[in-house]
């Protein structure tokens, strides 16, 4: 089957029920998207399908069709997306394992709600677990990214 991933159409040979996560990681070699729970509980595997955040660990690859997949590798080649810049400025990451998923959820949130409130952030980001406990700085970075997106500075 064909998959449109990060702007490139790739041919993959995968059983239809194989979760998109493992197709992305093991067959296409994009390892930025992480495995955390396998049951849509932790958000580490979050990718976008046509701009919507989905948990790729429970998304059978056959359901994707011609829709566009975006992974952390497709957000920017160099960490220059406003959300990534905000993450760097707020010194968010610790172990970093959950952060691809956190950033994918934050990018999707800001594309839909350019100026999120704390309640918006709670709603959009509570599906992403971070065991290092970077939540305080994630919240700060989402607000900061909103300002950066509008062309605002620090």
């Amino acid at each position, binding site marked *: 089957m064909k998959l449109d991933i990060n702007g490139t159409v790739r041919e993959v040979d995968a*059983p239809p029920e*194989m*979760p998109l996560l*493992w197709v992305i*990681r*093991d*067959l296409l*070699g*994009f*390892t*930025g*998207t*992480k*495995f*955390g*729970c*396998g*049951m849509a*509980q*932790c958000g*580490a595997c979050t990718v976008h399908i046509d701009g919507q955040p989905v948990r790729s660990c429970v998304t059978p690859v056959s359901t994707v069709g011609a829709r566009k997949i975006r*992974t*952390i*590798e497709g*957000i*920017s*080649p*160099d*960490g220059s997306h406003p959300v*990534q810049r905000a*993450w*760097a400025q707020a*010194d*968010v*990451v*610790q*172990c*970093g*394992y*959950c*952060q*691809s998923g956190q*950033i994918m959820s934050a990018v999707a949130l800001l594309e839909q709600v350019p100026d999120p409130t704390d309640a918006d*952030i*709670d709603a959009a*980001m*509570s*599906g*992403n*677990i*971070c*065991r*290092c*406990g*970077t*939540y*305080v*700085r*994630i*919240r700060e970075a989402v607000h900061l990214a909103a300002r950066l997106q509008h062309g605002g500075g620090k």
Partner: protein
Amino acid sequence: MTVTRRDLLRTSAAGAAGLFIAFHVPGGLRAVQAAPAPAAPPLPPANAFLRIGADDSVTVLLAHSEMGQGSWTGLALLVAEELECDWSKVRCEHAPAAPVYAHTGFGVQMTGGSSATNSEFNRYRTVGAMARDMLVRAAAARWKVPASSIRVASGVLSHGKDQLSFGKVAGEAMKLAPPRTVQLKDPKDWKLIGTKVRRLDTPEKITGKAQFGIDVQFPGLRTAVVARPPAFGAKLAKFDPSAALKVPGVEQVVPTGNGVAVVAKHFWAAKLGRQALHVEWTPPEGGGVDTAKQMAEFHAMAMTPGELVDKGQRGQIDAALAAAKTKLVSEYEFPYLAHAAMEPLNCAVKIDGDHCEIWTGTQFQTGDQMAAAAILGIPKEQAAEKVKIHTMFLGGGFGRRASPSADFVAEAVIVAKAAGVPVKVVWTREDDMHGGYYRPSYVHRIQVGLDDKGRPVAWDHVVVGQSIAAGTPFEPFLVKHGVDGLSVEGLADSAYLESTGALRITLHSPRTAVPVLWWRSVGATHTAFAMECMIDEAAHASGQDPLTYRMGLLKEKPRHAALLQLVADKAGWASPPPAGRARGLAVHESFGSIAAQVAEVSVDQGRIRVHRVTAAVDCGLAVNPLAVEAQVQGSVAYGLSAALYGQLTLSGGAVQQSNFHDYPVVRMYDMPHVEVHIVSSNARMGGIGEPATAPIAPAVANAVFALTKQRLRTLPLKLA
């Protein structure tokens, strides 16, 4: 004073070779301990820790694993402080596994005990100073001027108008003899230490490029998923691989000893293969551990004193309790906890003749190396040479990846050996949660006698719980006279008990089939809760404000008292909390640092909500305050997960929780606002990765009591 890993750090006077030799020579521990301490230790081999490239890049090799705590930045910062390099040119790599990278206190290559910064503070600064000395001498030779006339700043050597960047003389500098001694900077001249330095690993971690163990891929590498016993104590009876081998992508099914590995082209095929695999297990003898039964047994054991803890006996406890004006008796109960790091366990292994390569996120390279060597028949003295470990980024450690038995590494080596191909064993979340090596379950029973002013004059404390160190290579260091110091750290040495006249602290260490391990903040996960809640109960029983009462007991402990006063002031303790909320506080010393917290809570439809946490730490010198702040915030989140949710229960030896739906952890909506205050002190540098984990649960429990008058003594905290 109980025996802790910090004592291990202090008393390992046999030096860097001490514990390492112990791993080579079973039974040789006493000889090693008796060996005289070497004279002045030689300077570290700077080339093992630092490379300066012709492009001016400075690469620091890390003896400690990066698992979120920030050593990737902190250790580099120590080198850079003395080297006077351009910080923007600094990169890090995990060091290979080799004796030269042994922990300066533990003697084995290991990350743990909140010790990366304080144990490396001198070694990494020294390496930077040595390299600077060599660069200066190389430039002096080039210019034919005295070394003393050369100035160094931001990676540039200068003499008058002449300038050379480090890269221009790095090659010549490397050929020079290293200095015999170096002079480290006066603290007043520090430019980086003590300043807020952002992380060096951010660029790869925000772009998905960071390579964790689970991300390792190379041609020919297969993925395995292992069927392990469904209960602790269960044994593999028989298996039939035929159905698994029919799953497309599955290539082999191999036994692992007490499990069966399904080896496939990729994870998904391996997982489906394991589902199809037919395995039969022999149930545990005696039916296996059952939580309700175990807790009843622990409570029964707590009724009588156990083994006496070091410095845990003073005065006549029975008489003092009988004579006390008020007597309080409380029992506290703690469940098994999984570490539940975000990255499930995994390990990749490639065996080539009598050499082996391992890719994994590990906190304990030496132990892993020894375990792999033993499996492969490599002599111990050749392990460091023939077992190559590539330490990957750790997707969280929290102690689980410092496995004395090297469980997840050893298993992967067994699978790769049996399969005859390179294999990456990947654990599912369920495997990770069922795999053991938990924070042990405990019961504390405390009887306290108060005098007419409410002061504790008699303290009788019984702890019941499994030993973490027993049966591991660490046992000779940590278990003394039948008492595992990790089980009781923070009790006999509690700041509150110094002037208590009658004291008896004892420990029962029952053995069970459930493997246990250190879990972020280790003994303090339960001792801080028992102490801080019992002290709160004593304050209430004597009609005193919890802060005033504690300050009265801490008169001889100025650091504790100052920190507690600070955190109380910052939290607004003297003014009433917002309507519907209450505050609780706790202070605890562990890993050489003191952490104090005030939690502000409410109860919403029976659910405890923590809105705000005011935290303060005194860790001596804060090398990177930004990292300290992150560790405190993160410790609050980690400890709060245990306070509100964390609980593994067993039935028939099988763990009943399996994933984040039934082993919940703190999420964004649970996360309180955390404000961190760092007290700068001249005290000996403590650790910061763990100490702030301990106070949050008792601070929340004490706040819940203030709000509801319900004294919650069982974790996780649940309102009646």
